[in-house]
C-alpha cells in the first residue's frame, strides 16, 4: 500500500470510528438502567469487522467473548486470534480408493468445531456413489444408513469446504464478512455476517451452513480451545463452514485437522502446499488427482485422489 493510500484509509477509519462512538454513546445512554448487562450487548452490536480491529480492540473483543462463553458454558473457553503462519498454504488430499464412508470424520469435526447438535450441522457431507456411475452428483446419496460400510458396488466421497483460491462465496458477500486468509483458509467473521445467505447460493460444494436457530450446544460438548475465525460458538442467524481446524493447525506446524486424525483408514492427507517435502505435495505429484467441479474454475486446494 502506498503512503497516500494508507493515509486515506486511516482518515476513513478514524471518521468511521467517531461515527460509531457517537452512535454507541447515544444508544448506550438509552440503555443506562441495566448498565453492566447491556454494555456487552452494545459493544458487540457496534463491533467492527475483524479485519479492521486494532490490536487493543481485538483484545477487548476476545476478552468479552471469552467471558461470555465461559459464563454460558461454565468452563474456561479460550478464543485465539492466531494469524496465518508465514510461508504456509494449506492443501488437503482425500483418497477415494481408501474412504469407506464411516462418517467418523463428520462427527469428529462436529465435536472439535463446536457445531450445533440440535439441529445438527455437519461441515462434512459424505456422498455414496455407485461404482458404475462414478462421480455423478445427481445420483449421489447422502443419507445412506446400512449396518456396515463399505457397501458392495459403492464408493464414498466426503465433501467439505474446498478452500477455493478463486472462491465464489467471498466474492458475493455484500459486507465482506467472509474472506480468504493468507494460508488459504476461507473464514467467516460470525460477528459481522448479516445472514443474507448469498454465499450459500454461490458455493458449488454445499460447504456453507446456516444457523437457522440458536445453536444447540451443551456445555459438556464444548471444545474450549477455539479460534475467533474458527470453531468458537456461533450466534444464531449467521453462516459457518470448514476452516481446516485452524485452532489446531495454526498453532503447531504439522498438526492435523480433526478429520485427518480421526480417519481410520488414512484416507485424509493434509499439509503445506509450499513445502516441497510435504505429504500433500507428494500426493499431488505422484497420484492420480482430480478436482471436484473443475470446470467452474474455483481452483480448490482440496484434491481428491486414487492411491490404488
Amino acid at each position, binding site marked *: 500500500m502506498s503512503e497516500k493510500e494508507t493515509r486515506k484509509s486511516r482518515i*476513513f477509519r478514524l*471518521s*468511521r470510528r467517531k*461515527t*460509531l462512538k457517537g452512535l454507541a454513546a447515544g444508544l448506550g445512554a438509552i440503555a443506562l438502567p441495566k448498565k453492566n448487562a447491556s454494555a456487552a450487548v452494545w459493544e458487540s*452490536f457496534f463491533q467492527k*469487522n475483524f479485519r479492521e480491529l486494532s490490536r487493543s480492540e481485538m483484545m477487548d473483543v476476545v476478552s468479552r467473548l471469552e467471558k461470555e462463553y465461559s459464563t454460558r458454558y461454565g468452563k474456561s473457553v479460550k478464543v485465539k486470534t492466531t494469524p496465518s503462519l508465514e510461508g504456509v498454504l494449506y492443501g488437503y488430499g482425500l483418497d477415494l480408493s481408501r474412504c469407506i464412508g464411516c462418517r467418523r470424520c463428520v462427527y469428529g469435526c462436529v465435536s472439535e468445531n463446536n457445531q450445533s447438535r440440535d*439441529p445438527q450441522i455437519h461441515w462434512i*457431507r459424505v*456422498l455414496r456413489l455407485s461404482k458404475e456411475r462414478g462421480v455423478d*452428483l*445427481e*445420483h*449421489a446419496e*447422502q443419507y445412506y444408513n446400512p449396518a456396515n460400510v463399505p457397501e458392495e458396488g459403492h464408493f464414498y466421497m466426503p*465433501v467439505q469446504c474446498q478452500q477455493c483460491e478463486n472462491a*465464489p462465496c467471498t*466474492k*458475493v*458477500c*455484500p*459486507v*465482506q*464478512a467472509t474472506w480468504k486468509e493468507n494460508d488459504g483458509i476461507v473464514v467467516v467473521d460470525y460477528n*459481522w*455476517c*448479516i*445472514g*443474507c*445467505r*448469498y454465499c*450459500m*447460493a*454461490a*458455493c*458449488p*460444494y*454445499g460447504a*456453507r*451452513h*446456516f*444457523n*437457522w*436457530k*440458536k445453536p444447540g450446544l451443551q456445555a459438556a460438548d464444548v471444545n474450549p480451545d477455539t479460534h475467533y475465525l474458527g470453531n468458537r460458538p456461533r*450466534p*444464531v*442467524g*449467521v*453462516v459457518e463452514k470448514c476452516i481446516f481446524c485452524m485452532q489446531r493447525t495454526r498453532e503447531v506446524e504439522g498438526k492435523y485437522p480433526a478429520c485427518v486424525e480421526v480417519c481410520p483408514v488414512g484416507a485424509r492427507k493434509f499439509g503445506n502446499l509450499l513445502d516441497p517435502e510435504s505429504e500433500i505435495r507428494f500426493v499431488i505429484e505422484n497420484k492420480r488427482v482430480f478436482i471436484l467441479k473443475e470446470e*467452474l*474454475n474455483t481452483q480448490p486446494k482440496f484434491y481428491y485422489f486414487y492411491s490404488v
Partner: protein
Amino acid sequence: MKKVWAFIKGCFVLLRQGSKLYYSWLSFLLALIVIGVLAYSNQMYKGLITTAMRDQVSWGFYISNFTFMVGVAAAAVLLVIPAYVYQWKPIKEIAILGELVAVSAMVMCLLFVTVDLGRPDRFWHLIPKIGILNFPQSLLAWDVVVLNLYLVLNFSIAGYMLYSYYYKRQPNMKYVTPLLLFSIPAAISIHTVTAFLYNGLAARPFWNASILAPRFLASAFCSGPAGMILMFQVIRKWTKFKITDQAIFKIAELIAYAMFLNLFLLGAEVFKEYYSDTAHLAPMKYLYQGLEGHSDLVSYIWTATLFNITAFLLFLIPQTRENQVTLNIGCILIFVGVYIEKGMGLVIPGFVPDVLGDFYEYSPTGVEILVTLGIWATGLLIFTMLLRIAVPIMNGDFHVSEDGIHPHIGDDLFLVRRVEDVEEEGDLLTQ
C-alpha cells in the same frame, strides 16, 4: 422550507379524511400488517428455523416475492417512456401513478430482503462508511445501491411534481425531465442487476444462463403493467381520477409485445436445456416434469405457463384486448402467471436438486406466508396513502387555499363508488 412543511402538514390533514370505505380499507391493511409483525417477531425470536428454508434451499418465499416486486417496480418505465419520450397525452396524465407504484414496490422489496436476513440487527454493515458495502464486487451490494437510488429517484420526481401542483405551479421541467429520463435506465438497471444477482452464480446452472436478464425484463413489462391496469380500473371507479380507455388499451398492447418476448425467451431456454440434455437439465426437469418423485412445483409452473399463453392471446387480439371483461381476465392471468414464474418458479429450482444432488422440497410455512402478507399490506397501504394525496392534487381538489398557507380540500371522501363515471365508461366502450 416553510412551504414544504405546510405541504406535508396539509398531506397529513388530508390523509385523515376519507369515506367509510377508505377507513375500512386502511383498517383491513393495518390488521394484516399487525399479523405480519407478530409473525415476524416470532421469526425473530426463534430464528429462521420458523421458515421452511434450510441449507439445501437457502432462499425461499421472501426472495421470490422480492424478485417479483423488483419487476413490478421496473415496469413504471412503461408509462414514463410513452409519456415523456413520446409526449403521449393520455398516458402523460397518469404517468405519476407509475412512479407511485414504483415507490411502493421498492419499499416492499427492501422489506422482503430485510425479513430474509438472519441478522437484521446488523443491517448497518451494509451502509458505506459506517459499515462495509462490498461494492463493486458483490451483486447484492449493487442491488442495495440501485434499489435505494430508484426509490429516492421516483419519490423525488413524484413528490416534487405533486408539491408544485399543490402550489398551483407548473413543475420546472429543467429539473424534472433529466430525472425522468434517468429513471428509464435506472428502472432497467434495477431488474438487470437483480437478474445478474442470480445469473452470476456458476454453482446454479438454472440461473447461470445469459438469457436470464432479458427474461426478467420481458416478464417485468408484463406483470407490472398488468397490475397497473387492474389498479387503474379500481382507481377510476372508486375515485374522481379520470383515466381514459385509450391509455389502458395502449398499455395492454405493450403487454402483448412484452409477453411475446417473454414466451419466446422462455421457449429458447427450454429448447436449449432439453435438446442439449446435459446434467444442467435437472432443475428444469424438476420444475416442469418432476424429478425422481419430487414434483411440488410442476402444477404451479404449468398453471403459470397456461395463464401466460392465454393472456398473450387475449392481449394480442384487439377485440379481446379492448373488452373490459377479457382485458381484466388477461391482467389477472398475467399477474398470477408471472408471480409464479418469476417468484418461486425462478428461485426454488436454483436449489433443487442442490449442488451435491440432494433433494429438499420447499414450500413456505405459515410464518413466511403471514409475514409476506404483512409486507404486501404495507405496500398497498403506502400506495393507498400516496394515492390519497396524489389523486386530489391531480384533480385540483387539494391545493393551497387563497391565503397561501392553509390547504384547500375539495375531496373529503376519496374512495366512493362513482356511478356516473361508470356510465360514461360504458358509453365509451360501446362507441
